[in-house]
């Protein structure tokens, strides 16, 4: 797999996208389609979650099937914060990130001693443990999940309006993408990708590979936690479904469709998958079949992800 290199058109394109997204709620409202602001927010949140997985999977080479645990923990921490009377996102969101990140640190410290299939299985096992923990925790709603009484406030501004939450999600995604873009091009990212390519060689150059992997794993977990906290605000519920392994699978599919190890892979994958789902649900009840066929097509004809198709047209590296 190739190492990340920033392309010249990336920054202007990202800025254009940001401007377009910032205008989106107003455009939708003008055309009386405000309903879609919720969908757009969902896409942004999943773009954040998938991008955080892409840091772990794509840049770190760690195939984790437990990323939903961090996502779900973020959602629950937000709901628990509110239950405890903390309704300020500036407190609750960092708390969600910290809880998810610390849990990822613990999971990683154990799991990263294994490789390959064992790593997949052990991350899955940890995630399922968390799932069953929350299902059996009566105080946190058990099977039903933990509902939020209402959306939180961000720096005193209520997120109750769809537009406000959309901008909160957009800000979170933007901050994360800027950080990821810098990180993968900095020493840390170079090291992480080189370890993905050839761990033994990096050890032989004096790099403690385990430590770099662990930090990336925890960082990915923290941003998944942020996405979870945002999603709890969008749906008004911290659901145990968010913790389930199928959720990890969905995030994996998003990353694979978008492009493993490409900066924009998570964003593109989330937008494609959720967009397709939205369109197909309107067409037929059996939309899963069509979605499956489309996924098959992506894997067959764009095995490096949809992002790679555009990169190739843009003149390769």
């Amino acid at each position, binding site marked *: 797999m190739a190492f990340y290199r920033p392309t010249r058109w990336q920054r202007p394109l990202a800025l254009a996208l940001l401007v377009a997204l910032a205008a989106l709620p107003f455009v939708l409202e003008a055309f009386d389609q405000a309903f879609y602001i919720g969908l757009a927010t969902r896409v942004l949140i999943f773009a954040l979650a998938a991008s955080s997985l892409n840091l772990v999977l794509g840049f770190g080479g760690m195939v984790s099937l437990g990323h939903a645990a961090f996502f779900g923990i973020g959602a629950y921490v937000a709901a628990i914060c509110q239950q405890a009377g903390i309704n300020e996102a500036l407190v609750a969101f960092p708390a969600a990130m910290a809880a998810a990140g610390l849990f990822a640190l613990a999971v990683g410290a154990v799991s990263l001693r294994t490789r390959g299939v064992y790593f997949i299985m052990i991350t899955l096992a940890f995630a399922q443990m968390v799932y069953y923990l929350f299902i059996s925790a009566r105080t946190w709603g058990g099977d039903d999940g933990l509902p939020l009484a209402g959306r939180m406030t961000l720096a005193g501004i209520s997120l109750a309006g769809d537009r406000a939450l959309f901008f909160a999600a957009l800000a979170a995604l933007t901050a994360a993408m800027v950080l990821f873009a810098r990180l993968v091009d900095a*020493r840390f990212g170079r090291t992480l990708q080189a370890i993905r390519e050839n761990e033994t060689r990096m050890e032989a150059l*004096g*790099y403690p590979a385990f430590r770099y992997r662990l930090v990336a794993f925890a960082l990915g977990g923290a941003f998944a936690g942020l996405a979870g906290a945002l999603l709890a605000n969008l749906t008004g519920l911290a659901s145990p479904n968010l913790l389930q392994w199928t959720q990890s699978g969905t995030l994996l599919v998003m990353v694979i469709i978008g492009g493993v190890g490409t900066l924009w892979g998570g964003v593109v994958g989330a937008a494609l998958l959720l967009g397709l789902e939205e369109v197909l649900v309107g067409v037929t009840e059996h939309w899963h079949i069509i979605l499956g066929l489309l996924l098959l097509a992506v894997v067959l004809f764009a095995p490096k992800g949809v992002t790679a198709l555009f990169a190739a047209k843009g003149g390769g590296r």
Partner: protein
Amino acid sequence: MSGGLLEVRRLSRRFAAVDALKDVDFTVVAGEVHALIGPNGAGKTTFIHHVSGALRPDHGSVHFAGRDVTGLSMHERVRAGMARSYQITNVFPSLSVRDNAALAVQGRADAGSSFRFWRPVAAETALFGEAESCLAQVGLAGKADAIAGSLSHGEQRALELAMALATRPQLLLLDEPMAGTGPEESARMVELIEDLARHVTILLVEHDMDAVFRLADRISVLVNGQMICTGRPDEVRNDPGVRRAYLGDHL
């Protein structure tokens, strides 16, 4: 012999029922080129793995620069000043030659932490300056912009050496640096190692006997996991045990 840069004491390692290494004592003195030879399957690569830290011994110890490093992992031994090159070419093929060398410089303790998340690597001129000087040392200065995967086999071997040098080792473990190179490339590699030997102690594992006898100050012979002889090239050449081991290999 005491005061060796690298001292291996009574090192033993079994794999299932096979004694891969049996009570091996071995010393590399600072400043020398010490060659390790032996027939195929003698345990040379296993031995190098124990020295570099890729494998742990059942018994015995490894001392480096006066310090017991038996319990240290590979990356810790590299930081302590022990670098290795690989038998198979082991560079990052999709990176440029310069980036490969810079990555090796970046791994060094005195190059600062690699937990830096913001500044682009490309802006770190200090890394690249030093990378270029390592490349110049192995004759690859003109190829710095090439993608490592596009280099010839011999050039990749040289890059491998440059990366090992970039860690600023006291001891360089070279595992068959001539493997798979043609006669011309071999000759260039011998010159290169001769040149490096003026600055750094070298432990050389090699099959090419011409190269070994030309480069080595001392030679050790490993046969069936046992070190049967250590001495100057002429001593080793005339040792009856060594002759038996090598002739036996051909019978």
